[in-house]
């Protein structure tokens, strides 16, 4: 943690280097931002009491330089908000570690929290109407927890990227609405006398989850401004702002009434804007501007509170820069989310077909090492001998997923023998055209050949019972 004294001592050096040589403490130029890395994962909610029934949450960890933030999205069924009967609810919390809070300051944390609140909640980034289950009664409630793990400046941007990425890749389980016949169903809607309906969560293993509808994905871009010294040196620094000069000129033209415009321009304070500031830069800057734009290039938020007065034309310049940067970030996050979806889909298929391996969150945690496309052995299976419930939903899903994963049809895949287990052949799988159902179906057969549907389902979906 950099202390105030150190910054005060270095402030002059930092400023001089930036103004004169366009060089910042980590060797960047003023318009360069630090690399952003995003990591996404599905995990079980750590705070849940019962580990086996813990709901799945999505966590996005973002690192911008040394700044790190994580965002966790979780969902549960609750009552609808009292004033909006047709909507679910979305709540957002930003917090950081205790000792970090001391260094970081309550104010800044609040500011980040308010910005995200404005962007995501009040800016209606999330479609809340699709979260409603029974109007006026039950709805999904989405909770987003943003946690700052380490702060080296520009916390807000890291938080925004994490929040958006987590919301985009979150999958909530589907729900099943039933007329309240058996209150002990485990649904959250029980115990309400007037309500005739109850909703129960269908586990993700059983049915494909539902994505959140994210209308737009806003990314914040923070800038800090450093004033150039008024006397001299203007011409030397002019090339720092290649796009900036024309924008600033427009501001000048409006403000300068008539006559000696050149003179006014010389005397007017010029500013250098640094994107993605570090902690030291943030603490010795003259003004801070937060802009937010979505990936379509619309400006969503522009906020500057106090600080040195900045020329008006510069704000437009910053708005343009923010749009460009947000588009970059949007493309990056989109790509990451897509590859994560692909990865998690594969993992799920693998876990379904290989239940013991997928006991933990990560697939292949000590189990059969079989890649998806790999076929161990092929043998024909007569359909009548299997005697299975072909209409099992989970099976149908597994089929479509397996197909999506690129397996050839009409094959039975036999897993190779497990190294430790006694069972030589763990599982066989067969896909074929169903006679009545029309869709593709997958049947599996255990070693013993018992193959009752319930047994099968349990074997394939370890978490469900």
């Amino acid at each position, binding site marked *: 943690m950099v202390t105030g004294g150190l910054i005060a001592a270095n402030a002059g050096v930092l400023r001089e280097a930036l103004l004169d040589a366009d060089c910042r403490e980590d060797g960047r130029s003023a318009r360069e931002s630090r690399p952003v890395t995003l990591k996404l994962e599905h995990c079980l909610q750590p705070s849940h009491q019962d580990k086996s029934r813990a709901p799945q949450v999505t966590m996005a960890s973002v690192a911008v330089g040394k700044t790190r933030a994580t965002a966790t999205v979780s969902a549960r069924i609750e009552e609808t908000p009292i004033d909006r009967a047709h909507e679910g609810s979305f709540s957002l919390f930003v917090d950081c570690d205790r000792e970090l809070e001391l260094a970081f300051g309550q*104010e800044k944390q609040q500011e980040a929290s308010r910005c995200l609140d404005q962007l995501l909640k009040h800016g209606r980034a999330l479609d809340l109407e699709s979260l409603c289950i029974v109007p006026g009664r039950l709805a999904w409630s989405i909770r987003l927890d943003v946690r700052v793990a380490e702060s080296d400046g520009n916390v807000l941007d890291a938080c925004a990227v994490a929040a958006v990425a987590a919301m985009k890749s979150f999958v909530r389980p589907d729900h099943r609405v039933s007329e309240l016949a058996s209150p002990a169903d485990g649904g959250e809607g029980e115990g309400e006398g007037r309500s005739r309906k109850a909703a129960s969560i269908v586990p993700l293993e059983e049915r494909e989850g539902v994505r959140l509808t994210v209308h737009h994905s806003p990314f914040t871009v923070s800038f800090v401004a450093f004033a150039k010294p008024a006397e001299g040196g203007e011409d030397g620094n002019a090339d720092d702002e290649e796009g900036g000069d024309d924008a600033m000129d427009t501001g000048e033209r409006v403000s300068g009434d008539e006559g000696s415009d050149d003179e006014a321009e010389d005397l*007017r304070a010029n500013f250098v804007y640094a994107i993605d500031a570090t902690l030291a830069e943030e*603490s010795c800057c003259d003004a801070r501007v937060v802009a937010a734009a979505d990936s379509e290039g619309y400006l969503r938020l*522009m906020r500057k509170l106090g600080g040195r007065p*900045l020329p008006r034309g510069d704000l437009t310049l910053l708005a343009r820069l923010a749009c460009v940067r947000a588009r970059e970030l949007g493309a990056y996050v989109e790509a990451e989310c897509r590859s994560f979806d692909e990865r998690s889909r594969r993992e799920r298929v693998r876990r379904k077909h290989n239940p013991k391996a997928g006991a933990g969150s990560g697939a292949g945690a000590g189990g059969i090492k079989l890649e998806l496309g790999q076929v161990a052995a092929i043998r024909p299976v007569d359909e009548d001998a299997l005697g299975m419930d072909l209409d099992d939903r989970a099976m149908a899903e597994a089929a479509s997923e397996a197909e999506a994963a690129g397996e050839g049809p009409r094959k039975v895949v036999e897993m190779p023998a497990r190294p430790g287990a006694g069972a030589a052949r763990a599982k066989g799988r067969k896909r074929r055209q169903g006679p009545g159902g029309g869709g593709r179906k997958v049947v599996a057969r255990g070693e013993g050949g018992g193959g009752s549907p319930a047994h099968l389902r349990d074997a394939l979906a370890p978490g469900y019972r």
Partner: protein
Amino acid sequence: MAIMSYEGLRQDGRRWNELRRMQCDLGVVSGADGSCSFTCGRTKIIASCFVVPLSKQKASAARVPTTATAAAAASTAPHVELRVSWLPFATQERRERGRTDRQVVDLEGMLKQTACAMLDASSAVVQKQTASGRGSSGAARGNNMEVQIKVAVLQADGGVRSCCVNALTCAIGMANLVCGCLVVSCGCTAQQLGRTLRETRMLQSRGEEEEGKRLLLDPNGAETTKLGELSLSVTSAADRRQFQDVVSINCEAKLTPEEFEEAVETCAEGCRAVSKFLRRKLLDYMTKVATISSH
């Protein structure tokens, strides 16, 4: 009800570029060093400003620059405490707003930083004019004075942020503190008219309106809820070097950068008018005080 009629008049009979009627009374709070009641249409704000000696506790806390948002500015700007109270009857439906209310916290943070920027003498480009020091009410320079500001929102009908800033400026100006710049504020709608078919037809029928004159200056509550608001606070220095520089800005609507630029320019025009009004009011007050004290 449509935001704008076919004749090009808004709900309250203004044209797109007309401000609401402003009224500014100085010295409404007896006992305060500076106070102002600022009314703009149906929005009414009272701001009062007290200059008190800085307590030891706060002085020691201020000396340790933990966050150091403005390490350089801390030397010249006095310690500022600001409280906003949003009265429950301010809006049409009665609503208690506590200290943790989102809107109140937001407003408080923005006003505090604006006040800091205003009182920070080093932000002025020309140091020698302001630092000559003619502060009458115990020039709050150095670190031994604290400025306590209280802002009460009595009625809120759009443009609350801007009105608060204007009231604050008057209060600080009346207290005659050493300040780097006076700040005036004005808002305009963030989204342009003409998004809907009805509005487009209306604009076509008028014909003479050229493109881009569809932002409404100084929106009231109904217009703000429908179209969003961009509120801009700029310096009102007569000095051209710092003419209408942006002290704070807040825009929470969907805009393209081009629309943003236009909205900022529109606001700046409004700010110019507000600035003229406030300066005249302050000057009137100062001449009155000078006349009384010279007798």
